[in-house]
């Protein structure tokens, strides 16, 4: 007596693509990730949930390096995300072979989204169940993009994905300004992440930054994160 429904790539009466929406659901249940851009550069951060105390967090990447000036933080089905990341790395190199210049961040984002859009239209395949936050510095300065399973992408000052991303978003809406240098920016990212992370410890957070000055992607190692967390704990915290 409820609604009944069928096959893959078609519109619903309301003009929706259901498969894309369901893929979205898979994203919402991914781990929280966020991206912030500022004058000093771009910060990509992700939480690492310790599903079980035995998990070895250092072997898990949540923030990937695409090229030496671009980084990606995925969310949603892990396997799908990896596919898109490999694809992004190739496109970045192809661009170098063609124009002998580092690729624009938007160019890489666009190529990823085209691939996604194709999987929403042709028969025989399903959409990707992953959304990506793409960040980097190029000739336009610091850039931050978010792509969704339907192949739509937007530019953001700051954004978040994964479960309870809405909580993070509210927090960022209040405390974000563009005129931070890279230091303050990483601090803000940690504070925002601490809202959803089970407990605020070193191996629950992974961060990558691209600084406007060097245009180099660098992953923060454990000490730098420790320093940040302590600086925050001096300013106190809370529970979930």
């Amino acid at each position, binding site marked *: 007596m409820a609604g009944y429904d069928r096959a893959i790539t078609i519109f619903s009466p309301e003009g929706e693509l259901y498969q894309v929406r369901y893929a979205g659901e898979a994203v919402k249940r991914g781990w929280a990730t966020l991206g912030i851009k500022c004058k000093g550069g771009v910060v990509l951060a992700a939480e690492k949930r310790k599903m079980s105390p035995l998990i070895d967090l250092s072997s898990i990447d949540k923030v990937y390096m695409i090229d030496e000036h671009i980084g990606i933080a995925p969310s949603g089905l892990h396997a799908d995300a990896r596919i898109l990341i490999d694809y992004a790395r190739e496109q970045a190199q192809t661009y170098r072979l063609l124009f002998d210049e580092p690729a624009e961040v938007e*160019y890489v984002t666009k190529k990823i989204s085209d691939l996604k859009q194709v999987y929403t239209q042709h028969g025989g395949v399903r959409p990707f169940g992953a959304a990506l936050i793409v960040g980097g510095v190029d000739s*336009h300065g610091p850039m931050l993009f978010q792509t969704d399973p339907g192949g739509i992408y937007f530019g953001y000052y700051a954004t978040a994905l994964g479960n309870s991303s809405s909580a993070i978003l509210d927090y960022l809406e209040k405390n974000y300004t563009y005129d931070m240098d890279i230091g303050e920016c990483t601090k803000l990212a940690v504070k925002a992440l601490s809202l959803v992370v089970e407990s605020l410890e070193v191996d629950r957070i992974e961060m990558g930054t691209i600084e406007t000055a060097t245009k180099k992607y660098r992953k923060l190692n454990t000490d730098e994160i420790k320093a940040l967390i302590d600086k925050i704990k001096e300013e106190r915290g809370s529970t979930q």
Partner: protein
Amino acid sequence: MSEYEIITGTSVGIKAVDGVVLASEKRVAYGFYLLSKSGKKLFKVTDNVGLVSSGVLADMQVISKLVRANISIHEMEAKRPASTRAVAKFLSQVLFQNRYMPFLVEAMVGGVDESGPHLIVLDAAGALIEDDFASLGTGARTAIGIIETSYKQGLSVNDARMIAINAIREASYRDAVSGDGVDLMIITKEGIREETVPIAQPARL
């Protein structure tokens, strides 16, 4: 069992502190002279990058359009003017793919982008070489002499202009009663200016 036949002219390129000068003479196959606002062997790729080459006329027109078409798409995607280096690299890809046998086309790319002026030459087998000055074609050897002797670091666009005119004039060795002679393309930060300079009048008998 038989050779290709090639028609060719002479063209030169000189880099100054505040821009780049590309120049070439106007000989065309069946000996017509061309007076119009746009020269022929000089091609505007973007507002701040120009291409000069010599070889079969028809190929040059096709190639320059292909480059222009792809670079303008590239600009729309990159959302900024293409750099000289990108244009040159792409051109050598076009050549590398269609791999015209080497002596059909030699080309030079000149332009100004925010890292200053650049002049890039493609050598016979397709490598990219950044340079201060260069000349192409059969009159190249003659022209290079004149340029080499009167080139100094830090010269301005106007000096470069005069040198280019002399070199071309010298390399072509035939005097028509009253035609005009050298196409010039001057590239600076403000954009591209094109002009045509005539050969001066003969002294009275």
